[in-house]
């Protein structure tokens, strides 16, 4: 296998790892927004749950306790957002922003109080992190031509949560299109009056949607600090929540298209980190800084309606006032 092909394989491998938190967060945003609740607090939930996972895994010594804590913290942040937007019909953008800023401040403040390491958690040991899973026959097949290395390098050897992300996408699609909950959830994002007049509670449906979003963001946060990294560091979400938001919009609020967008954005990040300082003919040094903002530029261009049209759920952002 040529060196070039091997490099491509490694980049694709990194793409899967970098896309995983984006996939969970984009699905989270999808559930929330299809129910009519704008969720710019993906970033804050990601950060908050990454801290919870890192801190609890470090204290208890168990990676699964960390995951549980991450999901718990993320759900409670979702509930704050829901309390403001669903119960009190507050502005959903303002509420999301509050959650994000709170997460930035609280993670570091609590981190310093708990661990005295400037906001970081201690480096996690092997039992406190997710370990790579070697799929069966990976070693044996590695020598096989072409597909061997692909199976060994690309498909095998990821952490549990990476595989979970790729299972979550069809699952989410199934829930949204085939279950009573999913159908009602989508209806409440398009026409809450209709759902209400059918005797289904709009607030309770929306609360369940933001709770699902909380669970998914929690898994993404746990992935950041206990699978991808080895502990929490301050501002570790680093805008990934917003990239996921962009991916969800880029995917037109649909699970499979969102997955594609996450993989694309993940690939851009993976490629740009490999291309730092690499010289190309004609264009010179690779514009890695610009590659990193390409997801945002592409999302804006898509929103402008220049290729395809991204239609948001029609009741998105509008609080529902029950008629009397």
């Amino acid at each position, binding site marked *: 296998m040529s060196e070039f092909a091997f490099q491509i394989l490694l980049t694709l491998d990194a793409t899967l790892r970098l896309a995983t938190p984006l996939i969970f967060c984009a699905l989270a945003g999808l559930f929330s927004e299809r129910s009519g609740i704008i969720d710019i607090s993906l970033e804050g939930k990601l950060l908050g749950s990454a801290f919870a996972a890192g801190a609890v895994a470090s204290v208890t010594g168990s990676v699964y306790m960390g995951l549980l804590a991450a999901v718990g913290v993320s759900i409670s942040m979702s509930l704050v957002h829901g309390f403001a937007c669903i119960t009190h019909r507050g502005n959903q953008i303002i509420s999301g922003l*509050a959650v994000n*800023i709170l997460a*930035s*401040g609280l993670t570091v403040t609590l981190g310093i109080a708990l661990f005295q390491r400037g906001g970081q958690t201690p480096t996690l040991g092997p039992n406190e992190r997710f370990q790579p899973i070697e799929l069966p026959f990976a070693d044996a097949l590695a020598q096989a031509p072409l597909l061997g290395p692909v199976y060994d390098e690309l498909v095998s050897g990821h952490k549990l949560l990476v595989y979970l992300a790729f299972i979550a996408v069809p699952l989410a699609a199934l829930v949204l299109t085939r279950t009573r909950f999913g159908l009602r959830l989508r209806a409440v994002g398009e026409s809450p009056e209709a759902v209400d007049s059918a005797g289904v509670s709009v607030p309770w449906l929306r609360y369940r949607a933001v709770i699902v979003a909380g669970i998914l963001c929690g898994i993404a946060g746990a992935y950041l600090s206990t699978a991808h990294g080895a502990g929490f560091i301050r501002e570790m979400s680093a805008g990934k929540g917003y990239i996921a938001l962009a991916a969800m919009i880029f995917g037109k609020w649909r699970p499979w298209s969102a997955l594609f967008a996450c993989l694309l954005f993940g690939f851009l990040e993976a490629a740009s980190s490999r291309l730092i300082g690499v010289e190309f003919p004609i264009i010179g040094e690779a514009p890695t800084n610009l590659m990193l903002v390409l997801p945002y530029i592409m999302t804006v261009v898509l929103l402008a309606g220049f290729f395809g049209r991204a239609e948001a759920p029609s009741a998105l952002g509008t609080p529902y006032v029950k008629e009397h």
Partner: protein
Amino acid sequence: MSSVPPLPRWADVGLLPIINLVIALLVSGLVVLAVGENPLRAIDIMLQGAFLYEGSLGYTLYYTTNFIFTGLAVSVAFHALLFNIGGEGQAYIGGLGAGLVCLALDAVLPGLVLIPLAIVAAAAFGAGWALAPAWLQAYRGSHVVITTIMFNFIAAGVMVSLLAGPLIKPGQSSPTSRRFSENAQIPDMQEILGAVGIEIARSPLNLSFVLAIAACVFVWLLIWHTRFGYAVRTLGHSPQAAAYAGIRIPRTIIAAMAVSGGLAGLMAVNEVLGVQHRLLLNFTAGYGFTGIAVSLMGRNHPIGIVLASLLFGALYQGGSELDLEFQTITRDMLLVIQGLIILFSGALAYMLNPPLARLIASLAHRPREAPA
């Protein structure tokens, strides 16, 4: 809901915001308590750090200057019911405008020409950065919130590319531009007041503060005393009414966003021309986002915005004292306070409206009912 009496105006404008602020501060106090420190001592240190220590008032007013600009920026867009969360990026690019003028011309132009030119460039670049999201909102219906978020990240990417590339000071590795020459620097308040015989302590407070106050007057005149302001407020109250009244909606959206972006760009005047005297990464330091809190607290009115900016200026300056005095509380506590203020004064602003209205109504009715 119809049983709730309307809240009197004085309570809506004066009492409710204060109650919300107090709740936010109380919850912040609980966080301080939770990390094992004394909230009262923290407040004491913050107050002293913000107002009493030598030079502290100057620092407080320097932060206030930033918040006035970004707060006004958010408020102007908000009057047209547009949520501009791109103040951070607009200020960043505004700084690029001011910086480019200074780097290009500081060897040839005198300060009296150069500085106004740089200020205009800051506003123009800031406004320009708001134009694309504004145009997309006006003509393509793309949500301005999402596009301004994206433009914040794009601005950061552009600035990193430029400062690490063409604008980097030759012969160094950290991504900053060269220092501007003396004539491109906005004079400190200390120098100006010193010239007329008033001695004040050294601080980053500079003449930009006066520009910020002038911007407040400008916004007040623009929004409440011009045709354009009327169009903006009509659009904000009811797009249908605005359309029916013959107001050209797309044009009003674009103009309001341009003014908003220009005001955000002016924040860079304080930071780049007044304090740093060069271009560097992340000089906006979240001030653009804080502008949202400032505008919410100040109820989108220039007077309210000045008061809220003063509060946040004091929090920022007082907060930096926390670093020195406490083991466990750092500047990050400011973000907690800020997040709680946005939550209680913004997202949950009307949570206490019905109970407060009932309380006031029952207090107001009791004396009248008593004689009967």
